[in-house]
C-alpha cells in the first residue's frame, strides 16, 4: 500500500517537518514517567534466573527413592524382575517338593513294613 504524501511541497518544507518530528519525539520521551527501579533489582533478577535453572530438590532429601522408583517402574525391568522371581520361586518349590515327596514316600514305606508298635 502506498503512503499518501500529505505535504504539498516536499522539496521545500521537508526539513521543517523532520525537525518538528524530532522535537515532538524528545518532548514525548521527557513527558513519559519512568518509575525508579527497586533497590537491588538486578541482583534479584539474576537470583530468579539461577533458581529456575537449578534442579528441583524434594523436601526431605529422598531423591534417591524417586530415582529408584523410576528405575523399578520401567516396564522391561519390571517384567524381567517378575519373570526371574517366578522362575526362581517355582524352581525352589519344585526342589523342596521333591525332597518332601521323597520323605513322604519313605514314611509310607516304613509305615507299611515296620508298624509303629515295632519302632
Amino acid at each position: 500500500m502506498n503512503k499518501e504524501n500529505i505535504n504539498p511541497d516536499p522539496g521545500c518544507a521537508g526539513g521543517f517537518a523532520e525537525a518538528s518530528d524530532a522535537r515532538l519525539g524528545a518532548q514525548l520521551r521527557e513527558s513519559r514517567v519512568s518509575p525508579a527501579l527497586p533497590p537491588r533489582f538486578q541482583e534479584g533478577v539474576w537470583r530468579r534466573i539461577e533458581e529456575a535453572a537449578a534442579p528441583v530438590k524434594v523436601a526431605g532429601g529422598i531423591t534417591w527413592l524417586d530415582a529408584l522408583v523410576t528405575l523399578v517402574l520401567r516396564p522391561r525391568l519390571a517384567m524381567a524382575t517378575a519373570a526371574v522371581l517366578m522362575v526362581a520361586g517355582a524352581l525352589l518349590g519344585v526342589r523342596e517338593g521333591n525332597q518332601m515327596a521323597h520323605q513322604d514316600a519313605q514314611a509310607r514305606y516304613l509305615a507299611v513294613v515296620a508298624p509303629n508298635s515295632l519302632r
Partner: protein
Amino acid sequence: MNRSLVILLGALVLGVALFGGSYFAGQRACRMTRSADDLSWLRDEFHLGDAEMARIQKLHEGYLPKCAEMCAKIAAKKSELETALGGTTNVNPVAQQKLAELAALRAQCQSQMLQHFIEVSQTMPSEQGRRYLAEMQRLTLGFHEQTESSMSESAGHEHHH
C-alpha cells in the same frame, strides 16, 4: 507417606507374592505328580529297575499278610496286658507273664521284619542292598537305640551326682 515409598513397598509386596505363589505352586505340583505307591521310595532311593521292582513287589506282597497277622497278635496281647494291669497298683504275676509274651511277640515280629529286609536287600545290586539293609536297620531299630542311649546317659549323670 511419601508416594515413592508407597510405590516401592507395593512393588516389594508384589514381588514377594509372585515368588511365594510360584514356590507353593511348584511344590504342590511336584508333590502331586509323584507316585503314591508304597514302594516308590525304594525305586527312587536305590535306583531300581523294573525287574528288581517286580521281585521286591512279590516279596512285599508275601510279607504284608504275615506282618498284619503279627500286628493283630501284638494288639491282642497289649489288650490282655491292660486287662491284667487294670485297677492294680503293682505288677502281678499275670501281668508279668503278659509282658513277657508281648516282648516275645515283638521280638518275633522284628525278627520276621529283619528277615524280610534281608530278602529284599538280596534282590538288589550288592552295594544298594547293603545300603538298604543298613538304612532299614537304622530306621526301625535305631529308635530303641536312641532311647536306650539317652536313658543310659541320663542315668550316668545321676550316678555321677
